[in-house]
């Protein structure tokens, strides 16, 4: 049965977008050797990779997409050191020819227009990005990622520059 767009709930809409993006997410994860799990019931995405500069440490990025794409996802970062979750967070770093500044904020938030936690209305530093509804209109040179696979690509790029962890 077809349901008019006006009758869909926000979470229905989010689920449809997640489903549409699944092939891109899975293909990107396979190309880059990341583990990616998409939960269509919980509307979450988990993506995990080893930290390139911290021994025996992996980093999980956990995105909550209940209001996607009206709002950007809420990303959290879970660092697993020696098999145990810790309160650490990837340290900011820069790489040659890469982004001039990191998405890994010293206050342990993912600081990019595609991360809800970066916005002032969510307690983040960016009042200048106006509101969560405006996330697709925040201009370069800020990191641009309008699909989930684009976000995972940004995580990988910035993680590759991270020199270690902050506690």
């Amino acid at each position, binding site marked *: 049965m077809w349901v008019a767009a006006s009758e869909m709930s926000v979470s229905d809409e989010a689920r449809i*977008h997640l489903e*549409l*993006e699944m*092939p*891109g997410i*899975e*293909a*990107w994860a396979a*190309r880059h050797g990341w583990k990616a799990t998409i939960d269509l019931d919980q509307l979450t995405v988990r993506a995990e990779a080893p930290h390139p500069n911290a021994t025996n440490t992996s980093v999980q990025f956990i995105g909550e997409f209940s209001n996607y*794409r009206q709002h950007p996802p809420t990303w959290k970062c879970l660092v697993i050191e020696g098999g145990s979750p810790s309160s650490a967070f990837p340290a*900011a770093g820069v*790489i*040659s*020819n*890469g*982004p*001039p*500044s*990191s*998405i*890994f*904020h010293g206050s342990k938030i*993912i*600081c*990019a227009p595609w991360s809800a936690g970066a916005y002032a209305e969510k307690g983040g*530093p960016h009042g200048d990005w106006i509101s969560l509804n405006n996330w*697709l209109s925040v*201009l*370069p*040179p*800020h*990191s*641009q*990622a*309008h*699909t989930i*696979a*684009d976000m*995972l*690509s*940004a995580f990988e*790029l*910035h993680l*590759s520059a991270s020199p270690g962890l902050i506690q």
Partner: protein
Amino acid sequence: MGWPDLHSNLDALTSTHTFRRAIPLGDEIERSTNMTTHGHALLHLVISSPRDPESKTFEFPLTELVGDAAHEAAIAFGYKPGTPSFQTADHVTLSRTISLETAKLHDGEHLEIVDVGGGV
């Protein structure tokens, strides 16, 4: 805002650009000549984007700047303007301000689009 049409710009790209052409994957690449009618040496690149499971093959003049080629490829994949560059299979991010020739890319090389916009 609607879902981005990942392929909407492909036709425009192929029809309006003399020196560069997006070639759908699987099409035979004509390698018998590597020159355009204007005498510019061409480079074929197989480019992936994070959002699309399928890669596309492009041809660019060797003198093209990495940033311009990456922008062209990004548009073909449905990206809005950003700060795109290419990353090699060895995860080396290329400077956007050098030419494809200076980047020492080889014909048929696989690259992936990365956005090098900043955070914080």
